[in-house]
């Protein structure tokens, strides 16, 4: 065949070879078809591990109970027993090393998430004892009168004094 046919063909072959070499280098070894087949399981296997290695921030009550057993039992036996400590105090992360203290959230807004009265009969929200935030002591922190770890008790006065 003539030279003018071979020359562009060689260029094309070189480009294909280059692409294949780049592909071998750039595509990770564990990239391929896995359990769910080509349509859903075509991926880099190492990524699963990367997701599993993400740091756990919310440690749950089982973690808090290690040191704060009295608070844990007090909460557990109260009508607020199903609320996780970290819902109000923020994620434990590496507490007590990092951070050494967790937040004590005394905002009205926190309590109002459940206790702002909404008249919805078809949801249990309608059954929760609630208040109208505009008329029920507006501006005051709920913990001045109510004790969050056991709402059946009145606010502990030393606690209230500390807040003030």
């Amino acid at each position, binding site marked *: 065949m003539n030279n003018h046919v071979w020359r562009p063909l060689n260029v094309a072959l070189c480009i294909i070879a280059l692409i294949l070499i780049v592909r071998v280098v750039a595509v990770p070894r564990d990239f391929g078809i896995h359990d*769910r087949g080509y349509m859903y399981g075509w991926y880099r296997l190492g990524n699963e591990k990367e997701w*599993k290695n993400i740091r756990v921030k919310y440690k749950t009550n089982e973690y808090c109970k290690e040191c704060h057993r009295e608070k844990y039992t007090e909460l557990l036996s109260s009508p607020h027993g199903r609320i996780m400590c970290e819902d109000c105090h923020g994620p434990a992360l590496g507490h007590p090393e990092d951070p050494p203290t967790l937040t004590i959230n005394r905002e009205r807004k926190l309590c*109002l998430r459940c206790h702002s009265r909404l008249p919805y009969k078809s*949801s249990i929200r309608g059954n929760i004892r609630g208040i109208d935030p505009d008329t029920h002591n507006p501006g005051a922190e709920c913990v001045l009168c109510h004790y969050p770890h056991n709402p059946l008790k009145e606010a502990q006065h030393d606690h209230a004094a500390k807040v003030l």
Partner: protein
Amino acid sequence: MITRRRFCKNALLVAGGIAMPLAALEWFDPKRLHAERKDAAPVRWGFLVDTYKCVGCGMCVKACKIENETPYDADVSRTWVERYIVTKDGRTHIDSPKAARDGFIDKRVDLGEGRMETIRDEDIEKAFFVPKLCNQCDNPPCVQVCPVGATYQAADGVVLVDRSWCIGCGYCIMGCPYGVRFFHPVYHVAEKCNFCYHRISKGMKTACVDACPFGARLVGNLRNPDDPVTKVIMSERVAVLKEEYGTKPQVFYRGLSREVR
């Protein structure tokens, strides 16, 4: 001496016998068939949302955003809670301000752009809350449309996104019929709920399940018949979202209403 009648009868009997597969004579046990599915993965994560129990406190959204490092003040979230208020005139009002990160403390419906609509208590026919999250579909359309293989389904059914491989084209965000995917403002890749993969793979529950004080959210292994989630799905009336799309969602809802989209 064989007669024509006998010959025809026997020939039909033999032909019929050959045509009948052996499997037709087998006595099937549906439970065993269910267990012997082709993909014999020991775990298939599923989720159960009980909309009767949800009160719209939004603790799940807050916990999810912190646990999964979704920018807290950005208008994106892996999970959210919708409020449905159906009034007596037949209208449905739906809102989810800030994905319900701070719960629902206002009676007024958030119409967006700072506009609020007041609904009188006596006009309410029914009102309820519906938490939403990724359905981890068995036929995930978001995975099919990915041109680079950056989003995929792991053997346990969870759909994940490879952040280092995603090119941010957004096909999957458009392809999801449930709108659960969004563009991550920090990593500039597609982002979605992955059932807190780092938690469930350690034997923990997802952050939203732990944060929910009412038990409205549950995560479990659908391959384990003794799992509380599996038991409810098998024995109670549950529904999935947008079944007509054929995506086979694995998030099941108790108490779903026709207004829920």
